[in-house]
């Protein structure tokens, strides 16, 4: 049976075929759909969102030690959060199989960096598979579990955006029989006190030698021979781009990427006149081959920034003298206005950013939809580093500057649960004067509205104990904690003004559901009374996609505003800042 599946959907299907007992993650583009698909279509696998990737990884370790195959998925930067358990789990090894999916994001389509997590696998000393399409995404997950159990090691399945989010045809398989395992007490293996860890580090070194032998033998590393004097070494989507441009070259297709099959590659290189490594981001394969004295080139022709595509690979082949011509576009690109992503019409974050912009305070930001508050014309966010960073960043700025206007950290509900709580604890412990705004929209919104500890539901739809943000904040020791309606512009402005003046840490929580959630906020749209509108453009500057320029202008030729009734949610923010009160509820509007 064949299905059209994305790489992520294929991994979800693979979880069923591999007999995974526990699948656990924190949402993160481009990995999110793996667990969503399991929860929607493959309910024989228990799946859960954890508050962050470190906890998710630790739950996965527990599941493996408990005797069930464990799948843990995350975006590339999620593995930074989970690096602590990863580095030591590599020492202990597994009981039942353990695979971590690292979905990297070359080009940073939806990320703050484009780190290459193949390096993480080598750093930790764990093997990784690198699928080149959806079929391999599924099949390599199954192979990953076999390798994990056979060699007693966690295994990484390293995907990228173009593998995770490309749909391709997949031949489905049947679920495999997985031997039953139980939790077995084995402190020498699992309790990493120094004396045990020293032994386990030796085990890890020995294991890597065994894995290198496996890499030399496995079919996942294969030669495709076309009798060409040119050899290409590639894995993942880079292999596909290269095949697209030059299907007749010889290929060393890497599917099992660490440890590398150095001897097989050495023979392949010797048998060809020239061999190039085509890989995205870092020269991960190239450097290891060069260190082993194997004569290859790669980054010289392809660069190490951004994602590869057929055009870039063709240019590299051309520069290396391997192909005679490249396709040049026949039509020149047009220079047009930019269309950056924006906060949705009615987005409850907008009110907070309108107020912050007005006050001109230093605003440290975090990861989520609200990062969009930095874009023109809102221009209301000054930093964005990583999940949870806003609070620590604000504390540091405030310790140095003691800004009279105050320093405000802006963080979403899901991000606060992920890694904002410890930052807030620091602010309390070290008596920082920061103000923390927790923008609670009841969802992990940026990745598509997933549940989290504050929503009252689990990934699989079961009711859950809802962690109340204010109760938690007060329990941590915050004395100034209040909530405000972000649709009430004046109240939001006043709350921030007052709390930034209050000594000690303050928390302002805004509670309004994400507008993309199934329930609409207010049903009636607003309209612009063109008689009253004086084309001042104040409403344009709040960056609402429902507000556009009308064809009517004022005496100086400036356009008046018009509101798209189908997308307006009736949040009222524009009506509150309109100086001429030209923006009114549709039902209250009386045409002249």
């Amino acid at each position, binding site marked *: 049976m*064949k299905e*059209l599946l994305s790489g992520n959907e294929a991994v979800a299907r693979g979880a069923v075929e591999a007999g995974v007992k526990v699948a656990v993650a924190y949402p993160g*583009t*481009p990995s999110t*759909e793996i667990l969503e698909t399991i929860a929607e279509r493959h309910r024989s696998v228990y799946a859960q969102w954890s508050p962050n990737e470190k906890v998710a990884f630790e739950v996965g370790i527990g599941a493996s030690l408990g005797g069930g195959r464990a799948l843990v998925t995350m975006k590339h930067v999620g593995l930074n959060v989970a690096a602590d358990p990863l580095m030591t789990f590599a020492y202990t090894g597994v009981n039942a199989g353990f695979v971590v999916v690292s979905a990297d994001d070359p080009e940073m*389509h*939806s990320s703050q960096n484009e780190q290459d997590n193949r390096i993480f696998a080598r750093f930790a000393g764990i093997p990784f598979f690198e699928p080149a*399409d959806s079929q391999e995404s599924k099949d390599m997950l199954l192979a990953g579990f076999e390798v994990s159990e056979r060699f007693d090691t966690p295994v990484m399945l390293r995907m990228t*955006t*173009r593998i995770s*989010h*490309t*749909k*391709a*045809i997949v031949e489905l398989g049947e679920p495999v029989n997985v031997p039953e395992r139980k939790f077995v007490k084995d402190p020498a293996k699992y309790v990493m006190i120094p004396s045990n860890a020293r032994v386990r580090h030796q085990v890890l070194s020995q294991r890597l030698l065994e894995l290198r032998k496996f890499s030399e033998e496995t079919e996942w590393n294969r030669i495709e021979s076309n009798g060409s004097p040119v050899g290409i070494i590639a894995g993942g*989507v880079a292999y*596909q*781009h290269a*095949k*697209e441009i030059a*299907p007749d070259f010889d290929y060393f297709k890497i599917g099992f990427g660490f440890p590398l099959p150095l001897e097989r590659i050495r023979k392949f290189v010797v048998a060809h006149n020239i061999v190039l490594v085509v890989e995205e981001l870092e020269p991960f394969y190239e450097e290891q081959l060069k260190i082993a004295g194997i004569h290859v080139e790669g980054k010289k022709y392809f660069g190490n920034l951004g994602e590869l*595509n*057929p*055009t870039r690979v*063709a240019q590299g082949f051309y520069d290396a003298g391997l192909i005679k011509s490249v*396709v*040049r*576009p*026949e*039509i*020149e*690109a*047009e220079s*047009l*206005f*930019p*269309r*950056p*992503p*924006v*906060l*949705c019409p009615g987005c409850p974050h907008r009110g907070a950013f309108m107020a912050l912009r007005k006050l001109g305070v230093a605003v440290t930001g975090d990861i989520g*939809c609200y990062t*969009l508050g930095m*874009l*023109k*014309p809102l221009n209301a966010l000054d930093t964005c580093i990583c999940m949870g960073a806003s609070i620590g960043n604000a504390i540091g700025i405030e310790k140095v500057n003691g800004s009279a206007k105050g320093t405000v950290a802006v963080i979403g509900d899901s991000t606060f649960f992920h890694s904002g709580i410890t930052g807030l604890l620091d602010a309390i412990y070290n008596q920082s004067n920061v103000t923390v705004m927790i923008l609670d929209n009841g969802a992990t919104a*940026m*990745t598509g509205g997933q549940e989290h500890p504050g929503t009252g539901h689990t990934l699989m739809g079961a009711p859950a104990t809802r962690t109340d943000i204010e109760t938690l904040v007060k329990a941590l020791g915050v004395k100034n904690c209040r909530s405000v309606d972000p649709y009430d512009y004046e109240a939001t402005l006043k709350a921030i003004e007052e709390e930034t003046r209050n000594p000690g840490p303050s928390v302002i929580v805004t509670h309004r559901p994400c507008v993309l959630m199934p329930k609409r906020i207010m049903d009636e749209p607003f309209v612009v009374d063109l008689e009253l509108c004086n084309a001042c*453009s104040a409403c*344009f*500057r709040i*960056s*609402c*996609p429902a*507000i*556009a*320029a009308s064809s009517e202008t004022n005496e100086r030729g400036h*356009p008046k505003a018009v509101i798209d009734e*189908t997308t307006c949610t009736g949040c009222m923010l524009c009506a509150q800042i309109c100086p001429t009160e030209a923006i009114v509820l549709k039902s209250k509007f009386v045409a002249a």
Partner: protein
Amino acid sequence: MTNNIHNILIVGVGGQGVLLASEIISDVAMRSGMDVKKSEVHGMSQRGGVVTSHVRIGKKVYSPLIQEGETDFLMAFEQAEGLRAINWMRKDGIAIISRSSLVPAIVTSSKKFTYPDDAVAEIKKKLAKVIAVDADKIAAELGNPRLVNTILIGVLSSYLPFDPNLWIETIKSLVKPKLVDINLTALERGRDISHETIHT
């Protein structure tokens, strides 16, 4: 067509239905026994930003991405986005452009940027085969603004070598039951438009 591959580029603005359109086209390709890959980026691009989907259909498809300048069919849900993608087209490619325009806040709130006066006319200067569709108007006539998607697919479907019944089957399987009939009508309207265009 390059190397017997149909390269279809679908562009629009987050929320317009680009992803469903590429899903339907890819599904039809699979049902007809062809290899297919479709690639797009989720995440930030959903929030009112540009959405681009590459669909590649052929006997064997390697890269999920079209090479710049190799697009056979461009399907644009928004006319300025059609113009933005023009460099991806082959000169003899076919562009199917919905005459809808969405002017972003960054244009209305600053004097630095302008929205093109007539994007379709600009596209026609560069391409011989352009089908501009009043898709919003037709969808409104049919009673559901969401039908823009199916109307454009209807236009495209006449140019692809698939059995017309496959489009019907796929729509039946991917669309909610109560919306099937109206979507099939929209598909037919789209097919009529392309037929008229071929003959004039």
